[in-house]
């Protein structure tokens, strides 16, 4: 697997094309479909599969949404931050996202002026930067367990005063100036380029956040760098970020030891560098817990794996079925019916919460959008892809599955979709469905339907 990782770390990078600000008639351009279609086109066949997966995972932590920003042109520049930093350093990612105008709009850091009398600095970005992007609510040990006080209560990672003060630290930034416009202290929203500091709108009084002091009269820029330094020093960041990356990439229920091993790599990549995401990704994929089950005699734990979220389900399914697609494809619309509208997370809490649990109590973030409604929709969608194809721009190649006999057919399906570990139960069921069909194509369709709708495929493990 290491050679594959090396190849992936250096594979040429995908790009999402810039989108127009205005349409041909000079009106605001709001059509996300071509961008979404292109996302799937690249997700299906571009070489940098791991980079795209990590970037997508990071974009589900650092959320902005078309619900609030209905302008497609804002999204390629935002998405590139995750592509470019997927194997980079977490501090660089924090800085880049903080100064991105889409995030500036989404969590109202843009034009967050130093407060006049009777006002306070807007706490939105300050709070979610701490709660969702870097530390979480509770101080954590390296293995992800909460740190407890003498009474056994979790120790908060920050206080309300930290939020209020960090909001003041982050005052004084405005949107980039649009071409041909005159720069203002509070520019109107424009989503290409970085936000810039306007010192007259920055609260330059002394501030304290998480015990770190921001001396009076620092610039907005200096205050931001100080804030990033203070955040990077918080050891809680390592298990907070690593646990979520493991959940997105490997398993919903990582063991404390697994989290601990990856966290230690986050804290120090072996060369004294903290926040090295390439080292973290390598560690979490090569960990013994992640690799359990690769060989006979290394069983996986009962909570292992994670439900394929709709975007990843569609991408994997279509790739496995040899589909091609383009900017007119409707895979994104299909994912939306399953509860995941690409670039349109319902809130800053993303499509699903890392804390979400299944009714029986297992950790299962993706299950938040797996409902009694979207579960049959998944099966129906798979049937539609297999029997009619998704749309004329996304043809699948089922002829590749037609086999001389059902046994070979099932071998092929297991190899492609279930990393060659199909259970005997699934094999028997799929064989019954295939044997009742009459042609090589309908046999393949029946067996694929049973395999791809099964929990064994839906839960990657």
């Amino acid at each position: 697997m290491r050679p594959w990782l090396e190849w992936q770390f250096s594979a040429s990078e995908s790009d999402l094309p810039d989108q127009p600000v205005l349409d041909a008639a000079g009106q605001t351009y709001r059509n996300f479909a071509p961008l979404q279609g292109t996302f799937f086109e690249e997700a299906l066949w571009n070489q940098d599969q791991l980079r795209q997966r990590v970037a997508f995972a990071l974009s589900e932590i650092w959320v902005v949404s078309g619900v609030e920003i209905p302008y497609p042109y804002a999204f390629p520049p935002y998405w590139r931050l995750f592509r470019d930093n997927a194997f980079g350093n977490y501090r660089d990612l924090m800085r880049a996202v903080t100064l991105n105008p889409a995030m500036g709009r989404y969590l109202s850091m843009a034009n967050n002026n130093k407060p006049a009398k009777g006002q306070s600095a807007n706490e939105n970005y300050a709070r979610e930067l701490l709660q969702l992007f870097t530390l979480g609510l509770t101080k954590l040990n390296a293995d992800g367990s909460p740190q407890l006080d003498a009474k056994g209560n979790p120790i908060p990672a920050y206080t309300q005063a930290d939020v209020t003060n960090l909001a003041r630290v982050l005052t004084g930034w405005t949107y980039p100036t649009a071409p041909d416009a005159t720069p203002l202290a509070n520019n109107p929203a424009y989503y290409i380029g970085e936000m810039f500091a306007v010192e007259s709108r920055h609260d330059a009084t002394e501030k304290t956040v998480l015990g770190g002091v921001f001396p009076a009269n620092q610039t907005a820029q200096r205050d931001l760098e100080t804030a990033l330094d203070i955040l990077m020093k918080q050891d809680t960041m390592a298990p907070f970020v690593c646990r979520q990356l493991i959940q997105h990439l490997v398993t919903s229920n990582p063991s404390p030891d697994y989290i601990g091993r990856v966290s230690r790599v986050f804290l120090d990549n072996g060369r004294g560098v903290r926040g090295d995401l390439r080292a973290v990704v390598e560690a979490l994929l090569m960990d013994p817990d992640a690799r359990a089950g690769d060989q006979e005699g290394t069983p996986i734990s009962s909570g292992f794996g994670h439900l394929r979220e709709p975007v990843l389900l569609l991408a994997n399914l279509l790739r496995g079925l040899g589909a091609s697609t383009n900017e007119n494809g409707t895979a994104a619309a299909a994912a939306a019916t399953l509860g995941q509208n690409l670039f349109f997370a319902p809130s800053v809490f993303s499509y699903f919460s890392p804390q979400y649990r299944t009714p029986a109590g297992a950790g299962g973030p993706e299950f938040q959008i797996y409902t009694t409604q979207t579960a049959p929709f998944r099966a129906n969608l798979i049937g539609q892809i297999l029997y009619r194809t998704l749309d004329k721009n996304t043809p699948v190649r089922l002829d590749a599955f037609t086999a001389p006999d059902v046994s070979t057919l099932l071998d092929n399906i297991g190899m492609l979709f279930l990393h060659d570990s199909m259970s005997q139960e699934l094999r028997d069921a799929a064989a019954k469905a295939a044997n009742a069909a009459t042609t090589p194509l309908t046999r393949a369709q029946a067996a694929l339907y049973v395999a791809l709708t099964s929990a064994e495929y839906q839960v990657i493990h």
Partner: protein
Amino acid sequence: MLSRRNFIRIGTSSVGALALRPFWELPAMAQTGPYYRALVCVFLFGGNDSNNTVIPMEDAAYKAYTANRGALALSGSGLTAPVADALGAPYAFHAKLPEMASLFASKELAVLANVGPLVQPLTRAQYQAALAPVPSNLFSHADQQIEWQTSVAQGRSATGWAGRAADYMAARNINSSQFPIFVSLAGNSLMGAGATTQPVALGPGQSLALTGFDATAASNARLAAFQSLLNFDSGLSLMQAANATLAHSVQDASALSAALGKAAAIKTQFPATSLGAQLKQAAQIIQAQQALGMRRQIFFCSLGGFDTHTSEISAHNTLYPQLGAALAAFYNATQELGVAQDVTTFTESDFSRTFQPTSGGGSDHAWGGQQLVVGGAVRGGRVYGKFPDFTLGGPDDTDVRGRWIPTTSVDQYGATLSSWFGIPDGDLGAVFPNLANFSLRNLGFLA
């Protein structure tokens, strides 16, 4: 002879008559009543700034309101005409909620003042000196949503209060079918998760049915193979979870489509909004309650977008018309169906917001706030509980920005709804574990 339904109605408002009966007899009567009751939650995601939903217009309170709300203060055409409550005190609603003002005037809507999650009653002094337990992770969206939905303000409950109420009804076989008591029209919600019952989530206007099968032998064999795997125990908990939900869909789909297929179209016009569609679907399922074999149902709907850190005035001008029109249409539909007395709709939200504005014309995360309750059984035209003292840094403030400490708890709010739903007082503690910390167990807003 009085029907049981009438008896219960009289009973709850006539304490003397009930007091003559042994306490333990009450549950049996309340439970076995043949009547229908439904609770409908409308969750306002993002944290509705209810400081601007309904405003006390009495001089001193309104003066304090305008003095401290800055650019967010509503006045003149930003407000409905004041409506006097049952005690003569004037209240105005946000101008984009005229339907709510009308329902308040016609006594079909009650306002709950300064409600929020609490472990126990709490003063500013106790809060500031950390002398009493407070809810976990205050001011966080996700945590406060969970606390509203579970009515457990400390720690993390695996079940919601409506789920526990559903468990209670299911254990007593109040319904004659296995169809879920809790129906979400807004995705999975912890509120409806019970220890023994599970909710069903349904997209408005959608079907749970499997498609793409016909009567051929090949199709039947494929369907049988698909279904056989739903019972396959692989030993992996997430596979079990995926199968359990899908099996649940398959089971509920036929009951739902059969029942809805027989129902006549509802004449009431619903607004063409997300919340309108959700509430219309709820009305259609209520209409089909007999065919579904349901005597008790709980519905969950939602409207998002209330996280108004900036530009709050314009955001409310978009959101409140959706809320008001959908709530009013739904109430009209319950009247059309003859069940207005049997259906109570209530709002919840993550939290209310800071009374003091932000520099961008919005407000930040806070705590206690106002909620609305609509229905024929509501003793409306009244405010229950107490509005906060609007002084920043005053007796109801956690700090200096007007993050109000609730004076009524989610437990009291939910217990009052659940009591009307048919859970006897002696059993409410099982649904609301913190209720014992509050002296007033029934807020009295439902008859």
